[in-house]
C-alpha cells in the first residue's frame, strides 16, 4: 500500500532522485558519532518550535494576563506543565547542543577553507539562539523574568552615545512594561523563528555545497567514505531519541516553578539569569565605573566579531589538532574562563541564603486573600487592622498566629477580623510569613525598629 503510494507520487514528483540527493551524500571517512551534534541541535530547535506553538495556544502577551495564562498552562491545562517543562528544558538543551556542535567543529578545524561561510552563518545562528533565550525569559512575567530583563535591558543603556535610544527601542518606551512584553513576544515567536528558519536553510545549503569536512587527517578521509543514509542517519536518530528522552525526564521530574507575579515596586527581588548567561553575569561583577561599557559591550563585541571572522583570522590550513597549538590553546583558555566564571557564579548563588519557601508562599497567600485591604506592611495596605510590618516582634509564637487565623476573637478579644478557615498548609505558610516579619529581617540593612 505504502509502496504503491510512493510509486504513484514518484511517477509525478520524481522522489527517487530527491531521496538520492538528500540521503546518498558521501561522508569522507565514514559515519561517526562525533558528527551528531548538528542534527541534535536542529532536532531540539524543531522541538522548541513545536512546544512553543502549542504554548501560544493559551499564552497572552500582556502584563494583565501573561502571568495568569502561564499559571493556567501550568496548573489547569492537561499536560500543560509537561509542554512548558519541555520548552524550558529544551531551551537549555539546545544551548548545550550548540556548544558541543561548535566545539566539535572547532576541534576538527572544520571551519577552514572552503567552509568559512558555513562557520560564519553558524555563529549568526548561535547569536539568534541567545536572542531566543533573552526574549523568551521575559514572557512568563514573573519576578525573575521582570527583574532579569530589567538588568538585561539596562546593560544596553550603557552603550556609549546610542545607549539611551537603543534601550528605549528595545523596551518600546522609557520603562519595562506592556510594550516591552508585546514586542519581546513578537520577536520571540515571529521574527526570530523566521530569521532562524532562513539561517538554518542557508547553513544546510552551504553544507551541501561544500560537503562535510570529515576526519582531520586527509589520508583517513581519502581511505573510505560512506553515504549519509543509513548509518549516519541511524546515529543521528538514536542521539535525537536520547536527547528527547532526557528532556522528557527532566520536564517530568524537575518542576520549573513560577516566581511571584512581576511586581515593579518590589525592589528586594534579586534576579538570576539563565545558566547560559551566568558567566557573563559573573563577569560584570568584576568591572565597574568607567570601565563598565568596556566589559558590557566592547569586549563581548570584539569577541563575537573575532568568533565570526575566526576562519579568516586562523589561516593555518592544517586541521590536525596537534599542528594547531595556538588555536587550541586560545579555545581552551576561553572555555576555562567561561567555566570558571560560571562555577564561581553558581557557588555564590548557592551560598546566598534563600527565602524560606513557606514564607514566600505565605506572602503570596497574604496577597491572594486580600489581607492588605486591612493590614499595612512596610507602607502598603489598609489601616483598618494593625500594621503588621514587625508583627513578630510582639507575636513571635507560631501557635498564637495559627489560633488567631482560625478564630481571631479567641486570642484577641473584641477583634473585628474575620476567621480564615483555610487549609492547614496555607495557615502554616501564612504563619511562617507573619513570624518572618520582625525588625532586622526582610529589609536589606535591618529595618528600623519602632
Amino acid at each position, binding site marked *: 500500500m505504502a509502496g504503491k503510494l510512493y510509486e504513484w507520487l514518484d511517477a509525478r514528483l520524481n522522489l527517487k532522485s530527491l531521496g538520492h540527493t538528500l540521503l546518498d551524500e*558521501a561522508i*569522507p571517512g*565514514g559515519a561517526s558519532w562525533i558528527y551528531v551534534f548538528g542534527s541534535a541541535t536542529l532536532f531540539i530547535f524543531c*522541538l522548541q518550535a*513545536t512546544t512553543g506553538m*502549542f504554548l501560544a*495556544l*493559551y499564552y*497572552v502577551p500582556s502584563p494583565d*494576563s501573561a502571568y*495568569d*495564562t502561564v*499559571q*493556567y498552562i501550568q496548573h*489547569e*491545562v*492537561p*499536560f*500543560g506543565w*509537561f*509542554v512548558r517543562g519541555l520548552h524550558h528544558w529544551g531551551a537549555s538543551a539546545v544551548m548545550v547542543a550548540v556548544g558541543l556542535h561548535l566545539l566539535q567543529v572547532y576541534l576538527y578545524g572544520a571551519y577552514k577553507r572552503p567552509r568559512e561561510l558555513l562557520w560564519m552563518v553558524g555563529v549568526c545562528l548561535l547569536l539568534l539562539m541567545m536572542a531566543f533565550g533573552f526574549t523568551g525569559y521575559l514572557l512568563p512575567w514573573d519576578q525573575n523574568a521582570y527583574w532579569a530583563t530589567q538588568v538585561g535591558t539596562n546593560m544596553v543603556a550603557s552603550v556609549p552615545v546610542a545607549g539611551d535610544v537603543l534601550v528605549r527601542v528595545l523596551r518600546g518606551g522609557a520603562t519595562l512594561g506592556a510594550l516591552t512584553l508585546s514586542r519581546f513576544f513578537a520577536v520571540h515567536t515571529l521574527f526570530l523563528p523566521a530569521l532562524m528558519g532562513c539561517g538554518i536553510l542557508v547553513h544546510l545549503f552551504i553544507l551541501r555545497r561544500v560537503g562535510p569536512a570529515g576526519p582531520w587527517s586527509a589520508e583517513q578521509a*581519502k*581511505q*573510505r*567514505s*560512506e*553515504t549519509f543514509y*543509513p*548509518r549516519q*542517519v*541511524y546515529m543521528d*536518530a*538514536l542521539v*535525537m*531519541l536520547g536527547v*528527547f*528522552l532526557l528532556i*522528557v525526564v527532566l520536564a517530568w521530574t524537575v518542576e520549573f516553578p513560577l516566581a511571584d507575579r512581576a511586581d515593579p515596586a518590589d525592589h528586594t527581588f534579586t534576579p538570576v539569569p539563565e545558566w547560559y548567561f551566568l558567566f557573563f553575569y559573573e563577569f560584570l561583577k568584576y568591572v565597574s565605573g568607567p570601565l563598565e561599557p568596556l566589559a558590557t559591550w566592547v569586549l563581548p563585541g570584539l569577541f563575537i566579531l573575532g568568533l565570526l571572522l575566526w576562519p579568516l583570522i586562523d589561516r593555518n590550513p592544517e586541521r590536525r589538532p596537534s599542528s594547531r597549538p595556538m588555536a587550541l590553546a586560545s579555545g581552551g583558555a576561553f572555555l576555562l574562563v567561561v567555566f570558571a566564571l560560571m562555577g564561581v557564579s553558581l557557588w555564590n548563588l548557592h551560598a546566598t541564603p534563600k527565602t524560606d519557601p513557606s514564607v514566600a508562599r505565605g506572602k503570596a497567600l497574604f496577597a491572594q486573600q486580600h489581607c492588605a485591604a486591612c493590614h499595612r506592611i512596610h507602607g502598603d495596605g489598609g489601616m483598618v487592622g494593625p500594621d503588621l510590618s514587625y508583627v513578630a516582634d510582639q507575636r513571635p509564637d507560631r501557635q498564637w498566629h495559627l489560633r488567631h487565623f482560625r478564630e481571631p476573637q479567641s486570642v484577641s478579644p473584641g477583634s473585628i477580623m474575620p476567621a480564615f478557615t483555610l487549609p492547614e498548609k496555607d495557615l502554616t505558610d501564612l504563619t511562617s510569613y507573619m513570624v518572618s516579619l520582625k525588625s532586622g529581617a526582610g529589609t536589606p540593612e535591618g529595618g528600623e525598629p519602632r
Partner: protein
Amino acid sequence: MTRTERPSETRRTFFAWMIGLAASVVGLGLAIPLAGYVIGPALKRRDTSWAAVGPTGSLRTGEPEELEYASTVKDGWRTVTAKKGIWAIKQPAGEVVVLSPICPHLGCGFRWAAGDHTFKCPCHGSVFDVTGKVLAGPAPRSLDVLPSKVEQGNLLVLYKEFKSGLDHPVEL
C-alpha cells in the same frame, strides 16, 4: 582512491527499523500529550452554580419578568462575572418557571410582547406562548426550562445552555 561503502541489505533493514523506531517514539511521545493539551480545555464542562435572581414576591402570576442572573464563572484563565437575563413566570399554583433567554432555533435572544402575550424571536420569527410552547416559526422545540428553586422567598436559578436546532434540549 576513495571507496564509498554500502552496508549489506540486512544491515540496511536494521538501520531503517531503528530510525523508524526512534521517530515513532519521539512522534508518539509528543503527539499524545499535545493532543491532550489541545483537546482538554475544549472538552471541559462549564461549571455553573446556583445564584439568587431576586425575591418571588414581586412576580405577577402569568406575567413573565426578565431577571438578571449573575454568577462568577471561569472563562479560561479568567474569572469573570457573567450576567444573563432570564425569564421568570409565576404559575397560578404559586411555583415559578424559569426560561432560558436563548431561542432554541439558532440562539438569538427573544423578547416578551406584552400585547400579544407571546415571546417573539426577532431573528427568524419564532413565536412562543407564555409556557414556552412554539406557536409559529422555525423553532424546533419549546423554550428551554432552567432548574430553579425558592429559598426563603428568593428565587434561585442554575444557568445552563442548550444546543440549538434540536427537537429536544441537550445541555452544552
